[in-house]
């Protein structure tokens, strides 16, 4: 009995390449939520207490002031420290800490183009959220904020509560993303839109294409979750510093500009 060995070559080599930047970002996200859920860092993405330092979400602080018409000095200071972190790191929160990056943008309907006038769309979304908080006397977006929802789930898991509300809100947000046909992080998230607008003040750690090696193509745009093209786009305030473009560029023409 002769045994025939199939000599047909595999069409897709099964080498699973270690991806440096996504791995390190995933570890950062998971580590943050383990610290929150394990109560080593007291707080959540809304307000977190790291040693003597208190950092608050600027959008949450502004919504709270709009909703309650009260300014709490310590919270305002924490919000300013949050703003300072945005000046230092830009929108890195979205790429490195927010769990939404790993949950959203996987549906079959979410491959549309971004908003045509993205900066204005972001301003309208942020203004609408703050206006809704002012009208309703309630920071409404904080209830459904994906980062806050997952933080509350982590805290509930750490203190013996139910994580079902968090799962439900994330499911509802995924449904909204499916129904709209847009990438949630890129086009819809008020938190991302707010941080993008504040990132205009961020001069540090920016990716840029090296004009000597860059031959304008769309390699960076294809991997960019924010649909940015380094050789064509001037406004990089939406960049989440996920560093995908660095490994995607075929000519290694993307570099990180420290200042």
């Amino acid at each position, binding site marked *: 009995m002769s045994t025939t060995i199939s000599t047909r070559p595999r069409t897709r080599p099964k080498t699973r390449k270690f991806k440096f930047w996504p791995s390190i970002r995933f570890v950062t996200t998971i580590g943050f939520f383990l610290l929150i859920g394990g*109560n080593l860092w*007291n*707080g*959540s993405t*809304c*307000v977190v*207490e790291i040693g003597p330092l*208190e950092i*608050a979400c600027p959008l*949450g602080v502004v919504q*709270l002031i709009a*909703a*309650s018409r*009260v300014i*709490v000095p*310590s*919270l305002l200071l*924490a919000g300013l420290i949050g703003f300072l972190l945005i000046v230092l790191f830009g929108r890195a929160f979205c790429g490195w800490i927010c769990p939404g990056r790993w949950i959203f943008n996987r*549906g*079959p*309907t979410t491959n549309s183009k971004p908003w045509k006038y993205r900066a204005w769309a972001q301003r309208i979304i942020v203004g609408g959220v703050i206006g809704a908080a002012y009208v309703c*006397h*309630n*920071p409404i977006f*904080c*209830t459904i904020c994906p980062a*806050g*929802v997952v*933080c*509350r789930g982590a*805290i*509930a898991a*750490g*203190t*013996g*509560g*139910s994580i079902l*509300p968090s799962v*439900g*809100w994330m*499911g*509802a*947000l*995924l*449904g*909204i*993303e*499916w*129904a*709209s*046909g847009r990438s949630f992080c890129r086009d819809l998230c008020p938190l991302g839109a707010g941080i993008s607008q504040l990132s205009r003040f961020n001069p540090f750690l920016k990716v840029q294409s090296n004009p000597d090696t860059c031959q304008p193509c769309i390699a960076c745009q294809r991997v960019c979750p924010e649909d940015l093209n380094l050789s064509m786009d001037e406004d990089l305030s939406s960049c989440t510093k996920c560093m995908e473009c660095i490994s995607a560029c075929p000519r290694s023409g993307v570099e990180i500009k420290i200042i």
Partner: protein
Amino acid sequence: MNTSLTRREFLRISGGTASAGLVYLLLKPKSASANIKPPGALPEPDFSALCLRCGKCTSACEQLAIQIDRQGFPYIDGLSGWCDFSGDCVAACPSGALEPFEIETVKIALAVIDRDRCIAWNSTGCRWCYQECLDIQDAIWIEPDGVFLRPHIDETRCNGCGACVNICPRAAEVGGDMSKGKAVSLHQIV
């Protein structure tokens, strides 16, 4: 009838329907016991305007008494732990939605015994809530009724800490749903 629905449109409609259903489920009115706020909470319109839903009070509470409800607000129902009025949540609150309180006079809720379900009211023998409350607040008293001993709650003394809810052994008899099984529950003070 010619209905042309592409796959993408179908997916979009189903996604929208699913999210609308989930939002309805999550915003449905809560049960009364899920509305009891931690001690020192501001009165209602101010509380929901100032609460950042950050969950710091929940993780600060060493008694594990504070839980997070579906909209992100903290509440106390006595099922996971009871409030010892230590003020840890007030110290943790970054926005002032929880304010310092007088430990002698503060009341967050009122415990109410469900006499249809209570073991001591239906048969005899159980005095767990009485003994638990004796050292804490002494708000439960026992009325002898023939050979039976019936627990009553002193409404002027009870501060709603939830220790009696936490200790009540009646839960084990109704499946796994703790909230439906207890014979004593916290009610809002109106």
